[in-house]
């Protein structure tokens, strides 16, 4: 296996890079969904209070 170290390093960059990015956006999406549902609950509560 010639120059296998370079191939291995490239594979690490590709896979780790992609998985880290997917993890990051997955976490961000969950956080934002959580925030959005909290806002919706607050808004519903305010509407009920107004009535």
């Amino acid at each position: 296996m010639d120059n296998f170290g370079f191939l291995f390093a490239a594979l690490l960059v590709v896979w780790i890079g992609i998985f880290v990015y997917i993890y990051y956006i997955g976490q961000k999406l969950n956080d934002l969904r959580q925030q959005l549902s909290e806002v919706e609950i607050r808004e519903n509560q305010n509407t009920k209070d107004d009535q």
Partner: protein
Amino acid sequence: MAQITATVQSTRSYGWVDKLSQVLAFVTLPLMALTLYMTLIYAPTDATQGDVQRIFYYHVPTAWNGFLAFFLVFVASVVYLFKSSRFWDALARASAEVGLVFTTIMIITGSLWGKPVWGTWWSWDPRMTTTLILWFIYLGYLMLRAYAPSKQQGARYAAVLGIVGFVDVPIVYMSTKWWRTLHPQQVVEPGQVSMPPEMLQAFMVSLLAFTLLFIWILIIRTRIALIEDELEIRSIENG
């Protein structure tokens, strides 16, 4: 008010996108595993470069998806300037970020391939230089959005940059034809394939896997941009 209502409705009506995202994840992840098998075991070892040539199966698909992402930024920016729709702005901003991630991976894998083959990590040859310029254009695009005085102003300026910046994509692609460069001519072009069938099959599987992965990531990232917009609108609405 009409704009706010339209945006909130458009964000909510993307429930089917979550389904599509799940299906894509279900298809893409096994395909990525198949890509590993095809590129490391199934494809034959290159007679000249040896195993390091297998970086090709990752370097080229990430480059292709970077170009695809920047093409989407271009299209979404044009539509945004005409329609001022938040969806197209969200798509452009998501696509620029995902494109930058793919282009970064492409540049690093290219460097790791270049060292054993050309004896250098980096050379200022036309393709590498124009690619680096492309990377800086879209880094600048994201910075422009982040530091613009207002979100709308940032979106408009970024749309112009997204259109003008795309000019570099065909230059990167044609650089191996226009100038003398260390990079070889394209090995896969319409009507002309210069590689053994097993290598071509491995390449096609990898290209398909990375393209589906790109679409999946882009859907998630666009969803994030739309929810960010909705939260901002609601915070304005609620004072």
